[in-house]
């Protein structure tokens, strides 16, 4: 299946004209968000800086999941695996190979991206089947990491990795913020490119899209690898921040669920949705943690069910509705 060059080139400028505005608006929103976040360390204490770091990681993870799960419409339930792979790659590069942190961050993204190529055959399925296959893949990866002595830890009896001290809290704050900024801008760039349009077309109707010459498997693979690289990078940066990593904290199912939930809560398939969803959900999560620790899981579950049952369109759709009423 090859693209007819002449025809598709004729289509693209028209699309760009309509959507160029959109891209500009998105970049403004993201830059404003980053600017506000950049001055936060001068106003809040160490505790809230840590909370904000978690929030940044969550937003970056949700934004990258959103590309494959929201825009392309392939709900991956295995994205936690890429985050875990990033964190473990970073652990092995820093602790086993004694390489600098920068190499580890890049390495985490590269390894996660390469690993995601193994998932490509799963694109033969869709919907429930795709979701369940990716879920099974994540759990298989987790079991292997948990049991293989090479990945389990530096000593025979270790069940995880202990990072050396790599920097202060402020260093990690700006590192995570910087990575989040790059991630969000790359998402905007991807959405404004041919890939973004192709994914939207595939989501609407894959058969029609394929029949007018959109190479479906190619674009789905690009989207999947893209959405695996960023969790890998974030995992690699996040591991040293956590200091101790084990399958229980980086491969947990709740990592994957968080990405999905934040995307849905904010507005699935939109660029600003995951940012909004990440901020609001992290705030709710924080309140639940600090006030009702014992019922934290329960509150989390209730939140999931309430959001899906009553606001499946997410916050962005609520805001848009309010906006159009005012006009």
């Amino acid at each position: 299946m090859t693209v007819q060059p002449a025809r598709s080139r004729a289509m693209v400028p028209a699309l760009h004209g309509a959507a160029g505005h959109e891209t500009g608006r998105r970049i403004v929103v993201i830059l404003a968000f980053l600017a506000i976040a950049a001055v936060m360390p001068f106003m809040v204490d160490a505790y809230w800086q840590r909370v904000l770091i978690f929030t940044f990681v969550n937003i970056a993870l949700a934004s990258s999941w959103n590309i494959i799960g929201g825009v392309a419409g392939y709900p991956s339930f295995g994205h936690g695996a890429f985050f875990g792979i990033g964190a473990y790659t970073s652990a092995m590069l820093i602790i086993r190979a004694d390489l600098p942190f920068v190499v580890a961050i890049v390495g985490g993204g590269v390894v996660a991206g390469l690993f995601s190529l193994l998932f490509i055959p799963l694109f033969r399925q869709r919907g429930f089947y795709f979701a369940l296959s990716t879920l099974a893949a994540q759990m298989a990866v987790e079991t292997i990491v948990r049991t293989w002595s090479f990945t389990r830890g530096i000593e025979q009896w270790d069940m995880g990795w202990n990072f050396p001290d790599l920097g202060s809290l402020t260093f990690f704050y700006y590192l995570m913020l910087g990575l989040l900024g790059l991630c969000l801008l790359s998402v905007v760039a991807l959405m404004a490119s041919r890939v973004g349009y192709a994914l939207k077309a595939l989501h609407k109707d894959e058969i029609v899209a394929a029949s007018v010459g959109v190479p479906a498997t190619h674009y789905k693979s690009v989207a999947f690898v893209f959405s695996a690289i960023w969790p890998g990078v974030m995992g690699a940066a996040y591991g040293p921040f956590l200091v101790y990593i084990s399958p229980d904290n980086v491969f947990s199912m709740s990592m994957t669920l968080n990405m999905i939930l934040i995307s849905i809560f904010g507005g699935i398939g939109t660029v600003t949705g995951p940012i909004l969803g990440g901020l609001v959900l992290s705030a709710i999560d924080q309140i639940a943690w600090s006030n009702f620790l014992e019922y934290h899981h329960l509150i989390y579950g209730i939140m999931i069910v309430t959001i899906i049952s009553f606001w499946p369109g997410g916050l962005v759709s609520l805001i848009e509705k309010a906006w159009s009423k005012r006009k």
Partner: protein
Amino acid sequence: MLDIFFFGFLRGAVFALAAFGFSLVLGVLGIVNLAHGVFIVLGASVTYALYSAGTPIVLAALAAAATTGLLGMLIQRLFIDRVFNMHPLMVLVQTFGVAIIVSELANKAFGTSERLLRLDVPGLPYVEIGSVFVPTYEIVVFVVSLVSAGLLVAVLNYTSFGRAVRACRDSRQSAELVGINVPRVFLLTMGICGAWAGLAGALILGLRPTAPHMHFMWTIEAFLVVIIGGLGSMGGALVGGFLYGVLNFAAYYYWPSTAPAVIFGALIVMLMLRPAGLFGLGTVVRK
């Protein structure tokens, strides 16, 4: 080798029983219910609580099945009913959320520790079959599973309710057109799913340690059984149960530490190569 095959086969019946409801819901409602495992672990927890309080085991198991059946109907009415027509993602996340809520509540009510009942048939704890000693309880579980499965098949094949269920499974729109109350059929289907899974949980309590937090493993296992046998057909689920029983036993016997990876790997391979089941007995859900 022989005893792995034999015990795997015996356990297979209970795996099939645990998966029947999953297969039925997937066929009729067209959804993957990630809260399925909750019915199983909750069935086990309720049975354990009632049995420790002095209820006879048979009554306790039936009460547990009734509880999970009602829970299934409740979940359908309150939650799944709202979203089952949307993108599959919504149902998956929502039912997973339901699973978290119910298993957390079960943790609070029944405790987080793993429960196992030592149940013996009075007077005849073991039976010798060939060279294998088999606890009589395992044979009881096998027979009960087959009988209750047979009952379900009879209900689906010979009652008017069963005809309505099959009509909804084959074509929802046509079923509506001929005057079948589809929401009611969905409600009862979830009830049946819950009840049979709860009964399976009650039986499993005597075979393997069970705790509320294990619900997700059971969901995966039910899915695997259904996929191996083929969707939508009860016979397929039974075959899947037997095959999965042997696979599961062999995996945990030969590779105890990597068994989950082997099982999940098998699931991926099945989904990719034979989504209609090993013998192509079932249909494929296109959603």
